[in-house]
C-alpha cells in the first residue's frame, strides 16, 4: 500500500474535523474492504481515520426496533441473543458473511457504506425497511442505496447506527458465489406491519426491491406465490460465475426458499 497518515479519533466530531482537514481522507472501520483495496494499491488516501476508537457499537431492542451501532462486528450480530430473539433472519445473515476472521473484523456500518453489489447487509436493510442514522440525518433504506458502491452518504458523513423494525416473519436466502462466497444472489423477504418487502442483492448493480414478488406475497405469503414469477435478466449481472439468465432464475428460487424458511 501507499503511505498515509493514520488517526484514531475519540469522537465523531473529531473524526469529521480530521476528515475536513486532511485532503483525501478515508474512514476506516473493520478494514475488510478498505485494507485489501489499499494493499492492491487501488486507492491512495492521504489519511485513514480509524472509527474504531469511537463508541459506536452495540445492540439495543426497544419499541419493536432493533438498533445496531455502525461499529458492531458481524460476529456480534450473528451471535446476539437479542437479534436472534427478534430478527433471527438478520443474525443468520450476519453469520454467513465471509469467514470467521472477516466476521470478527467487519462492521455493519462499513458494509452498508460500502454498498458492494454482492454484499449481504444491504439486503437486510432494504428488506426490513431499516433507517440509517448518520452524523447529520436519518435516511430510509429505500433512499440510501443509490447504485453500485454508491449511497446517499455525502462527503464526510458517517453512519452511526442502523434501526431495523422487527418484522412478523422474515428470512434471508443466500446463494454464494462459489469462489468469493459473497452473494451471487441473496433474497431477503420480510412480512412487516407496513407490508411485504423483498430485497435482492448480488444479482444486479445494487440491491433492489422486487415489486412483483412483493405484490404476490402480499396476497399470499407462500412459496408458491413467487414460484411462477420470472425475473427479467435484462438488468442482471453476468460473469464467469453465472449468466444474467442464471442469476434471474436464482432470484426466483431463492425467493421461494426464503418464503418457505420465513413461514417454517
Amino acid at each position, binding site marked *: 500500500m501507499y503511505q498515509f497518515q493514520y488517526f484514531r479519533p475519540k469522537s465523531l466530531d473529531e473524526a469529521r474535523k480530521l476528515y475536513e482537514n486532511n485532503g483525501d481522507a478515508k474512514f476506516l472501520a473493520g478494514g475488510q474492504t478498505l485494507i485489501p483495496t489499499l494493499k492492491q494499491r487501488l486507492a491512495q488516501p492521504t489519511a485513514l481515520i480509524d472509527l474504531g476508537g469511537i463508541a459506536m457499537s452495540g445492540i439495543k431492542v426497544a419499541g419493536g426496533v432493533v438498533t445496531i451501532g455502525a461499529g458492531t462486528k458481524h460476529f456480534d450480530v450473528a451471535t446476539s441473543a437479542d437479534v436472534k430473539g427478534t430478527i433471527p433472519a438478520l443474525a443468520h445473515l450476519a453469520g454467513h458473511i465471509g469467514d470467521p476472521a472477516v466476521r470478527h473484523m467487519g462492521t455493519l456500518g462499513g458494509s452498508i457504506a460500502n454498498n458492494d453489489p454482492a454484499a449481504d447487509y444491504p439486503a437486510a436493510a432494504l428488506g426490513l425497511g431499516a433507517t440509517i442514522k448518520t452524523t447529520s440525518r436519518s435516511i430510509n433504506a429505500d433512499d440510501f442505496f443509490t447504485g453500485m458502491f454508491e449511497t446517499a452518504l455525502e462527503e464526510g458523513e458517517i453512519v452511526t447506527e442502523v434501526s431495523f423494525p422487527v418484522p412478523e416473519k422474515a428470512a434471508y436466502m443466500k*446463494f454464494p458465489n*462459489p*469462489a*468469493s462466497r459473497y452473494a451471487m444472489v441473496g433474497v431477503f423477504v420480510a412480512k412487516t406491519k407496513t407490508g411485504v418487502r423483498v430485497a435482492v442483492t448480488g444479482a444486479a448493480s445494487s440491491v433492489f426491491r422486487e415489486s412483483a414478488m412483493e405484490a404476490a406475497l402480499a396476497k399470499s405469503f407462500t412459496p408458491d406465490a413467487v414460484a411462477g414469477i420470472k425475473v427479467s435478466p435484462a438488468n442482471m449481472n453476468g460473469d*464467469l*460465475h453465472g*449468466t444474467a439468465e*442464471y442469476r434471474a432464475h*436464482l432470484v426466483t*428460487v431463492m425467493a421461494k426458499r426464503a418464503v418457505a424458511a420465513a413461514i417454517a
Partner: protein
Amino acid sequence: MTAPVIGASIRRKEDHRFITGQGRYTDDINRHGQTHAYFVRSPHAHAKLRGVDTSAARAAKGVVGVLTGADLAADKLGGLICGWMITSKDGTPMKAGAHPALAVDTVRYVGDHIAIVIAETYGQAKDAAELVKVEYEELPPVVDPAKAQSDATQVHAEAPRNTIYQWEIGNKPETEAAFAKAAQIVKLDLTNNRLIPNAMEPRACVGEYDDATSGYTLYVTSQNPHVARLVMSAFIGIAPEHKLRVVAPDVGGGFGSKIFIYAEEVVCTWASKKVRRPVKWTAERSESFLSDAHGRDHVTHAELALDADAKMLGLRVKTIANLGAYMSTFSSSVPTYLYGTLLSGQYDLSAIYAEVDAVYTNTAPVDAYRGAGRPEATYVIERIVEEAARQLKLDPVAFRRKNFVRKFPHQTPVIMNYDAGDYDASLDAALKLADYAGFPARKAAAKAQGKLRGLGFSTYIEACGLAPSAAVGSLGAGVGLWESAEVRVTPTGGVEVFTGAHSHGQGHETTFAQVVAGRLGIPMENVEIIHGDTNSVQFGMGTYGSRAAVGLTAVSRALDKIEAKAKKIAAHVLEASAADIVFENGEFKVAGTDRKLAFHEVALNAYVAHKFPTSEIEPGLKESVFHDPTNFTFPAGTHICEVEIDPDTGVTTIVSFTAVDDFGNVINPMIVEGQVQGGIAQGIGQALLEHGVYDKDSGQLITGSYMDYTMPRADDLPSYKLGFTVTPCPSNPLGMKGCGEAGAIASPAAVMNAVTDALGVKEFNMPATPSRVWAAIHRTRAAAE
C-alpha cells in the same frame, strides 16, 4: 522388542515444528545487509517493448539498483530452458522461442518480467517500480489453444503457427485397422481445464553473493535444489556449480509448481552480485496467480473402437496442449511422455495412436501440476470408457472387467510395461465400500425428492518414478532420474541420511526414518533425514512425479552396504567369522551363541578402529548409493463418485466418494491416506470448482484472485471412503509404488462421469459449476420439451 515401524501409522516428525510455527521457510530467512526486490511485470498479454526507462526509479528513495533485460544480455546470461527435447512426428526437433529471464524486446503474457527493482525495503522497491516507464506497442494476444494454430498472432517467430511440436505415439497402422473393422466407434470431445496451483506458501528466494569466496547462495522455494543449481550453472551461466549453493528449506507445498527454474530466482541470484547485497523476493498472491506455472489446459478429441462383443479394439486421440507463452522447465514432457504413455489405462488395448500438438499462447507458462499428464490421460480414457458403456447399454463395471489387463507383465502399445497389478481386486473392494448394489434405490429416492443422482467410475493406472535413466534419455530428457542416498552412522550409533528427495509436504522425514529405524532396529529419534541443501547432499533429482520410492530404495540399498560392512567389523570384534554374523533386532550376533553387539557398539568400533585390520576394512561407517530404478512403478485402483444435483440451482453435491488404491507395500498408512485425501481434494477442485480463465480479447487473467478462482474449501469436500489393496511392486526391494498424485489423477473422471450420469448428457466440460450445470439442465429440458 518393539512393534514394527515399517507399515505403522507413525505421527509425522516434522509436524512438531510446523504446527508450533517453527517451520523455517524461505521468507523466514533474512541475511545481513539484505535488500528487497519487486518485479516490474507486463500489464499486457502481448506487446513490443519500445523503451524501458529506469532513471526515475533509480533515483527514488531507498533504491539500490534497477536491472532490465538489457543488463542480463550485457552479462551474457543465458535464458531459461526447457529440459526435455521432444521430436515431432516429421523428425524435426521442437521449436522453442527464447525465454529471457527479463524481457528484451517483447512481453508475451500478463505478468511477464520486465525489470527488477531492488531497494532497502519492500515498500520502497514497490514504490520505485511504479516509476519505471515502459513504452508498449500493444499487439493482439491469442489465448485459446484451439485457435492458436490458425490465429494471425505469432507468439514466437521460431514457432510458425504457434506450434512447438506435433508429436505422436502408438501404432498407427494397427489402430487404423482396428477402427476399420470396428462394430462400433464412440467419439468424445473433452477439455482439461487450466488450473492455477496455489501452494499455500508463495514462491520466494534470497540470492546472496559472497565476495570473499566468490560464491553464491540461493535460498529458494524449490522441490529440486540440485537441478536448480545445475540449470543455473550449466545453462544460465550464473556461476560454476561449485560456486553456487542452493538451499530449499521448508517448502509450503509445491504440487509441481516449485520444480521449475523461474525468472525471479535467477535474477535475484545474479543481481546479488550486481548490488553486492543479498536480494530477497517473496511473491504476493496476485503474482503467484500470474506467474507460477499453471497446469493442464488440453483440448482433446478421442475415439474408441469396439467389436460386436464390446471388446476394445483401438483408441485414437488428438490433443492440443497449451504450453503458454514460454516453455517452462519440464513443460514439453507433460503432454507427451507423461500423457500419451498412459492412454491404455487398465485395458488390454492392442492399438493406440495419439497425436499431440503443443502450442504457444499469450498466457502463463503451463507445466507439471500434481499428476502432470497422467490426470489428462486418465480423464480421456475413463470418460470415453464410461461413455462407451452408456452407448452400448452395458454396466460400466462389466464393460471394464471385460477389457481389463490381467496378465503381467503387460506391454502396452504406448511404451509402458505394466509390471504387476490386480485391477479386479481394487474394483471389488471399491464396489463394496461404495455400496454400488444400493445405487438404484438411492437414485430413485433422490428422484422422489426432485434431485438428480449420478454415479461415476474411474479405474485408473498411473506411472511414478520415471525410469530407467537411459530410457528417459532416449526419449529426450536432459537429465537422469535416479536418486541418491548417503547414510552416515555416527560413532555413537546415530544415523544421518542425506537424500536428494526433497520433502515439501510428503513427510519424508518420517517415512525415510521409519525405513532406517525398521531396518537397523534403532529408535526413530536416532535417525535424522537431511535434504534440501546442495552443500550437504551431494546430488539428487528432487521430488515430483511421486518418485520418493526411488529415494527410499536408494536409502534401503545404502543400508544394505552399511549392514554388510558392520557385519565384517562385528566379526572381528566378536572374534568370529563374518559368515556367522547375523543381524537381528538391531543386534549383531554370532549365530548359535549368546555373543552379540548392539548396533551402536559396532558403530563405535568402526570409528575407534582398534579391533579390525584397517588395511582390509576402512575405519568409519558411511555408505552411499545412486539408485537408478529399472522401471516405473504403477499404482492403480478404482475411484467411485456419487453426486446429487439440485436442478433448481445446478449445485452438485458429492454424496459419497470412494477410493481404493493399490500402492504396493505402504510404509506409513496415515501419511499415504493424507496424500490420497489431498490429491482427491485437488481432483474434485478441478472437476467442480477450479478454472484458470483468460479474457479471450485482452488476454487478462480473469481468475487472478480468490474472488474468482475457486479454491476447494473443506465444506466443498465429502469425507472419503478409502481402502487399499496390495500387489507389491516387483522393481524395488520394499515393494512400494508412488502415492502422491493418484488422488488428483483418478478423481476428476469419476466426478465428471457421475455428473454426466446425473445430467444424462454426453459432453460436459469441467468445472461443473452450478451455473454451467444449470445451463446444461436447462438445455436438456428445453430440448426435451
